[in-house]
Each structure stands twice: as structure tokens, then as C-alpha cells.
């Protein structure tokens, strides 16, 4: 087991290294204009540009530039090319909003998917099941930024039931925090609720036909007990796996659209704004931040699986 975890850690580090190199190259190989020229302002002079190049190290060769950037990432003094703000501080400022959004949404979509998926499976083939299937498909098909923008406009701006975008810190004002996040949580959850409830429904229907479920019924257990202890428990394993992977995906940049639409000022929105300005340092840093969560959750899921199933340990 220790060996498996160690190998997983090594591959995590290698993958993150590759991600950093590729992100760095996207901005260095693709001809997208000289950052020094853009940084020099509206009326650039030759000496001005040359000085900026020297100061920021744009004259160095690619390897040195990459090394410099990574050193700055780890020592925490990476600066944006355009706002000159400290990238680490900006990301740290966005983390509470991003985590609040992701954790809340993950809890919400899991709860709703459990209830709806189980109900749908119990009523399989009946009207309620068909209706839920249709709703799930509709939910999966709606663009998150569209439904988010409409919710924000109609429920927030027009009806004033909810605040119209923005983020309030949990420690400053717990109630305001909750109010500001209800709409973003819902918008982000819809897609996952639709998806998870359908996966759970089909898992439950598969499990219900297993022999051990028939045995449980035959020995006289109550229907409720059979469903919860025998069926649901075994149907949950794939869902929990997905949950881990999707949580990493959402924290690591998957919430970028939701954050932008609701103006939550999270890490994703920071990424979106930096990309638009072709600001390399924040983009590299945010991509690494996102990749870290994705890789971490992937590894955690793998390790959890290996702990449960010895075959996986041996294969890898």
C-alpha cells in the first residue's frame, strides 16, 4: 500500500511539472505579441521597452525564463505583468469564494441527486420516474452561465429575492454569505444533479437484481432496510468516486463560468480576467492551482479504491 501511495505521489509531481511547462510554452511559443511592448504603455519608446525586457528577464532564453517563473511561483513573489499585483495574494484572496462555492455546490448536488435518483429508481417506469428523467436531461443540457445569468437577473435583480451577485465573507456575515451563494450553488449544481441522479438510478436498478438483495428480502428484512443497507450502500461507490473527481474539477477551474456570471471574485474569475489580458504569470499560477486540485482528488480516489480493492494495488 505504501508503495502504491508513493508511486501515485511521484506521478502527481511529474504531471504537475508537465502542466507547468505546457502552460508556460502556450504563452512563449505562440506568437501573441511582446509583453514588453504592451507593458510599455500607450507611447512606448525603444529604451523603455528595452529596459522592461531587461527588468523582467524577457531577454533570457526560454529555460532561464521558465526557471525564474517557477522559482517565483514557489517563493511567492510572482507578479502580474500588467497590474503588477502579487499573484499569490490575488489567488489567496479568491480562495474563500471558490471553496465556498465548490463545497456548498458539491453538498447540494449530492443531496439532491441522492433523493431524486433513489426516488426515480423506486418508481422506475412510472410517471414520476419519467418526469425526473426528462428534467435531468434538460438540466444537463442547459449552459451554466446562461441559467446563472437568468437566475441572477430575474430572481436577484428583478424580484430582489436574492442579492444580485457578489460575494460576502463567511466570517464577516454568515447570513449574507449564505444568501449570496444560494443562486450560484443552484446554478452550478443543476448539471451535476441531473447527471448524478441518472447514474444513481441506473446503479440502483442494477443492484436491485443482485442475489444478495433477494436473499435479504427472503429473510424478511423490511423494504426500507433492504433499500438503505443493501441496495443504496452498494450503488453509492461509483457515485462517491465521481464526486471526488468532480469536486477537484470544480475547485480547479470548473467553476470559472459560475464565478464570472455571479461576480464572486474567486480564483476562476481571476483566471478569466488574466487570460483576457494575456497575463502569463497569473495564468500559469492559476492553471497549476487548478491542476493541483484535479490531480490531488484523482490520486485520493485512486488510493481509496486501492485500499478497498487489492487487485488495483497489484496491477499498478
Amino acid at each position, binding site marked *: 500500500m505504501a508503495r502504491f501511495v508513493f508511486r501515485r505521489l511521484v506521478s502527481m509531481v511529474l504531471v504537475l511539472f*508537465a502542466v507547468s511547462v505546457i502552460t508556460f510554452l502556450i504563452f512563449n511559443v*505562440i506568437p501573441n*505579441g511582446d509583453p514588453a511592448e504592451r507593458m510599455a504603455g500607450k507611447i512606448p519608446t525603444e529604451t523603455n521597452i528595452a529596459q522592461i525586457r531587461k527588468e523582467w528577464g524577457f531577454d533570457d532564453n526560454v529555460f532561464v525564463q521558465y526557471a525564474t517563473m517557477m522559482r517565483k511561483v514557489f517563493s511567492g513573489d510572482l507578479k502580474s505583468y500588467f497590474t503588477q499585483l502579487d499573484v499569490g495574494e490575488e489567488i489567496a484572496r479568491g480562495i474563500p469564494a471558490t471553496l465556498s462555492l465548490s463545497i456548498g455546490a458539491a453538498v447540494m448536488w449530492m443531496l439532491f441527486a441522492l433523493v431524486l435518483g433513489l426516488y426515480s429508481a423506486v418508481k422506475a417506469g412510472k410517471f414520476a420516474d419519467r418526469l425526473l428523467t426528462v428534467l435531468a436531461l434538460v438540466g444537463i443540457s442547459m449552459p451554466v452561465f446562461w441559467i446563472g445569468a437568468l437566475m441572477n437577473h430575474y430572481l436577484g435583480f428583478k424580484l430582489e429575492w436574492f442579492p444580485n451577485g457578489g460575494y460576502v465573507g463567511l466570517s464577516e456575515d454568515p447570513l449574507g454569505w449564505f444568501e449570496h451563494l444560494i443562486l450560484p450553488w443552484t446554478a452550478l449544481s443543476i448539471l451535476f444533479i441531473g447527471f448524478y441522479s441518472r447514474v444513481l438510478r441506473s446503479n440502483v436498478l442494477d443492484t436491485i437484481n443482485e442475489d444478495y438483495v433477494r436473499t435479504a428480502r427472503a429473510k424478511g428484512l423490511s423494504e426500507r432496510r433492504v433499500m438503505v443497507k443493501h441496495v443504496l450502500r452498494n450503488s453509492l461507490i461509483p457515485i462517491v468516486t465521481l464526486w471526488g473527481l468532480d469536486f477537484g474539477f470544480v475547485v480547479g477551474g470548473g467553476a470559472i*463560468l459560475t464565478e464570472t*456570471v455571479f461576480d464572486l471574485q474567486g480564483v476562476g474569475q481571476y483566471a478569466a480576467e488574466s487570460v483576457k489580458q494575456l497575463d502569463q504569470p497569473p495564468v500559469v499560477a492559476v492553471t497549476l492551482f487548478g491542476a493541483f486540485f484535479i490531480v490531488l482528488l484523482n490520486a485520493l480516489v485512486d488510493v481509496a479504491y486501492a485500499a478497498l480493492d487489492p487487485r488495483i494495488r497489484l496491477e499498478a
Partner: protein
Amino acid sequence: MAAAQARAPEAGGGKLAAGAGPWRLGLRRLRRNRPALAFGGIFLLLVATSIAAPLWSKHVAHKGPSAGKTTDQIVIDGKKTDVVSVKSIPIGPTWRGEYFLGSDGNGRDVMVRLLYGGRNSILIGVSAALITTLLAVVIGLVAGYYRGWVDAVVRIGLDVMWSFPVIILGVALGVALQLGGLQLGPVSIAAGSKLLPILIIAVVYVPYMARPLRGQVLALRQKEFVEAARAQGAGPLRIMFGELLPNLAGTIIVFSTLLIANAIALEAALSFLGAGVQPPETSWGTLLDSGIERLVSAPHLTVVPGLMLALTVLAINVFGDGVRDAFDPRAKVRLEH
């Protein structure tokens, strides 16, 4: 519903001969799935209306997708009305030939732009899905067949791509490429070309399809029919594309159908973040992007393209579900945006 339908036809095979191949069985199951067929029809209808965009533009709206001034006027109930009011609020749907779905902030006809935008959205979605499928099939076959170091290299590459935050990667590539275009040896793509979003979306989705295909190839190549082919003197190419590929067909069809829906959705997301289709071209994503900016004064600019986008993605998803139940009922296909 889906699972029940997938099981029923197998149980009651009916008149079909015992030796009927998987293709005939699959098509038969698909034909019986009315909702899936209906939504497949809706998708074809949406494609047809997009193709017919110039007809509507020329004969009904009398306006091109980029034509229009804020000072334009139309006659409604005998009165001349500004298409964009003095307070710069565009009119909503008129439900008549001209400005059927209203005007945008520049006095352009929303219906015409919606039809032309649909052309790009569907074109990009379908082309990207095709390219992803092609790449993923080749990668999956080669990695699964050769195993060893080839497989190791492919696996690391896919792992790295898998670990990228998809949207951030797409947006970073999109913005960087849209500024300077792409020059790779003899290949050069101009900035602003529709090929850029197509390629970006295609590449981003490769690991989602290549990974499961590779797994299937690994299992298939142990089977007797591969051994038999090799004993007959078949080379690697013949085994990969002649023997293994047909056995992957079910998975490939299912994946590529659902990929179209995901690619259309990702194009919209990229365009919304300014990294997809570039003006003066339009897509449902760019229409939504400019619409959301004017949500307060002209909600129809957000509602209309979003509905079209959702309807298209829904149609493909329902049809794709039917295809999966028919051809690969045990598959747990999963894609995400």
C-alpha cells in the same frame, strides 16, 4: 426509462433471426425508441434551419447577419418604430418577417444572427467531435495494441491533458491563438479563423475518449480472433483497423454522438469568455456573451440564443442516450465540460 427500454427488446427478440448481427439488433432497438428518434429529428431540423439561414435572411428578413444601423426603423401597425430606441434599448420580438425576434444593440436582426450563429455552433461542434474521435481512435488503438513504452508515453500524455483545468486551458489557448494565429511548420491558421476553436475543443476532449478506448483494445487484443488473424499473417495495421476497430464501433458511435453535444456547449463557454468564435462571425456563444451584457435592457438577447443552445444540446443528448441503449447498453459513458 432508458434502462428498462434497453432490456426489454433483448428479452423479446421477436421475429429477428437468431443469427442477426449486432448492427441489425442495435438499429432495431433504436427504431423502437420513439423519444430518441424524435429528438434526433429535432436535431436534424435545427441543422436544416441553420443551413437555410441565407434563405430567411434574403427572402423574409431582407437583411444580412451584419447589416443594420441603430437608426433603422420598421413599420409596426402603420407606425414607424425605431429598432433601437433613443435610450439605446433594442426592440424585442416583433413576430413578423423583419426583426422576428427583435433587434440587438446595433440594430441587427436577432433571428438572422441566430440562424447564422447556429451554423457556426453546429459546424464547430460536429467538426470538433469528428476530429476528437479520429485522434482518440488512433491513439487508443496504437497504445492498446503496442503496449510497452508506446502505451506508457500515451498514458502519460493523456494523464497530463486530463489534469488540465479544461476551461482554463481552452481559454488560454483560445486567447493566445486568436491574437497571432497559429504557425506550425507548413500549417498556418489565420487569427480569427473558425478552425482554431474547432482544434482547441477537439484536442481538449481527446483523453475522455482515448482512455476508455485504450482499455477496450487492451482487453480485445487477448481474444482468439486476434491470434487467428496474426496466425494468418496479418500485420499490425490490418489487425488494428481490420480486426479491432469494428469491435470498438459501438463505443465510438456512442461517444462521438455525445461529444457533439459537449463540443457545442464548450464552444459556447469559450465564446462567452471571449476565446471562441471571433467577431464579425457569430455563434450562439458569442450571441449569449453580448446578450448577457445587455440583460437588463433587452432580456430577449440572452433568452433566445440560450434556448436554442439548450434545445440543440438536449436533442443530441436524448438521441445519444438512445444510441447508447441500442448499441452499447452496458457502457457507462461519461463526458464532462
